[in-house]
């Protein structure tokens, strides 16, 4: 079997775990961690595809590098929001932030 499929299977598994965690966990920090998990799953898929399918030189790896950079920025902003929210509400439980309830 083509080794690419194993890598892709791993990526899908990681993505699903991340998606489940992001939707189901109440703790915002855990949610952010799960987002990272999803991003890294995508990274694995991109790098694996670049390795086994070839194509334009290093384009897949380049995407992965961009994603790592963006993920760093994103998690910084995300954690800053979490801290700011914590100062107001003394909690990091996502379901307690419901001021916008209609």
């Amino acid at each position: 079997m083509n080794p690419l499929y194993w890598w892709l299977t791993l990526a899908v598994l990681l993505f699903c775990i991340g998606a489940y965690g992001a939707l189901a966990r109440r703790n915002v920090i855990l949610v952010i961690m799960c987002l990272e998990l999803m991003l890294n799953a995508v990274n694995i898929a991109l790098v694996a595809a670049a390795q086994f399918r070839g194509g334009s030189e290093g384009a897949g790896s380049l995407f992965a590098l961009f994603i790592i950079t963006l993920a760093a920025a994103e998690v910084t902003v995300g954690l800053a929001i979490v801290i700011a929210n914590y100062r107001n509400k003394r909690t990091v439980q996502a379901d307690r932030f419901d001021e916008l309830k209609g």
Partner: protein
Amino acid sequence: MEVTPYMKIAVALIVLLPLFGFVVTLLVGKRFGARAHLLPVAMVSATAVLSIYAFEWVVRHHEEPFVWNAFTWMAAGRFEVTWGFQVDTLTGVMLLVVGIIGMLVHYYSIGYMHGDGGYYRFFAYLNLFMFTMFVLILANNYLLLFLGWEGVGLCSYLLISFWFGKKSASQAGKKAFLVNRVGDFGFTLGMFLIFVTTGTLQFTGVFEKGEMIGAGTLLWICLLLFTGAVGKSAQFPLHVWLPDAMEGPTPVSALIHAATMVNAGVYMVARSYPLFIHSDVAMLVVMVIGTFTAIYSAYIAITQNDIKKVIAYSTVSSLGFMFLALGAGAWAAGIFYLFVHGFFKGLLFLCSGSVIHAMGGEQDMRKMGGLRKRIPVTFWTMLVGAIALIGVFPFAGFWAKDEVLGGAFVGGHYIVWAVGILTAFLTAVFAFRLIFMTFFGECRASEEVQHHIHESPKVMTVPLLLLAIPSAVLGAVAGWPPESGWIHTFLEPVFFDVEHEEFVWLGEGGGLMLFSVLVALLGVYVAYQLYIRRTDVPGRIADRFPLAYEASLHKMYMDEIYEVAPIRSTIGFAGWLWTFFDVKVIDGAVNGLARLWDLFGQGLRPLQTGRVQNYALSIFAGMLALVIVLAWFWGA
């Protein structure tokens, strides 16, 4: 025909000078204080001279009217209206009346309004009035005429309620405006109908097609136009505004509510002569309304005690007389009456103003008397006006009134003629009742008022004298010989194919004249007996016939009838509209719609949980759906 440029310039200036005077005086007149009259009076004097020039031009070229379409006012498809002017002999007569009386009233106002707080405003309005009145009579199409028509209505409103601090004055202004709206509505509909039927509003274009319009349509056109005339010229049942209009300053009553504006209705019907002539029913309506108004208001005038109210009802009666003439087919006689009536009725109003001025603002004749020696100029000029009004040979009213009655008689309208004679009798009674109560007998004013009685200044008495001259001689100048005088030949191009009825036998005309003069003199004699010799008799008559007396004194309860029928029901209807229709239906619909959207929104509310993970779930679900759909299509 080649028109001299002078005439164009003259017509343009006649219209523009008063407009200029109005604008300047309104804007900066206040700074000139007691000299604010200088510009408006100068403007009006110039227009009077130009009016005489235009009149003289018409005399020289009376076969062919002067027509000048200055520029297009508005155009849309087939519809085109110009600022077009027309001077024919009918316009010439009107120009003379408006120009000369307008000028004299301006001079008179200098004295009468002296020291009034709104001095400059008064003259500004008067100039605006002159502008709109000239537009009205010079227009060569119905819409421009209507512009002037509404303009004079506006000025009438502004000047009636000139002393707006007085409640009754502002109410009277509103009343005049609203009652005229009724008539103007008819006029507007008439114009619509004319345009739909003939495709134009130009007089010449409309009148060319006058004969071809179907009888039913033509009747409607004439009746609707006449409705406008009924409002403007204060005919029954829309006459109620004119007596109340006496709340305005007296020069206004003389200029607007006697000599010029109220004639606009008569003028318009005369102008529409080629339409009316083809509709016998419309002519009959005009005649009946005119005749009824004439006798009706003469009857009211007999018991009024306010000196201006008497003359006001007399004016309504005279206007009725004019419509009587037009309706009876005596077109030239009707315009003749309008012509001389402008002068002597303007004179009577200005004289009454002079009396009021002398009495320190008193208008009740019961508190006057014996003024003959104290204010001789006013007395003599007013006497001339009264004699002219009742139509005694050889004063102006005699010639005109006689032609009107003669026209009715030879037209076979004997009942109308009889009513006219009765009206003439009543006119003589109330005119000399006014003269006797004001100028003869003992003075009934308080000591203090008596002490201050004084003749008016020159600037007021000279216009009186200048109006007294035409009131005395104009009839003979324009009307001799009877039935074929100068005015008839002059107006012939306008009233081109009137069937001229002749008296059946020689001396019939003379007999009628003699009879009407005798009736007038009888009226004077009756007034003399009642108000000089046996002053207790009028009260006894009133006690004997309380119903007739009260009806006359209360103006036939016309205001009360209006109060009950149209006004109350309108207010009631408006109240229903407010409490039911507006609150329940309109507000209900709006609120109901709002509630519907509210319910809809309430239904959607649970979607907005405010929890970020719920939103994330929907994003995820959406993305998943998208992926599945894309995979489906790519797979296939």
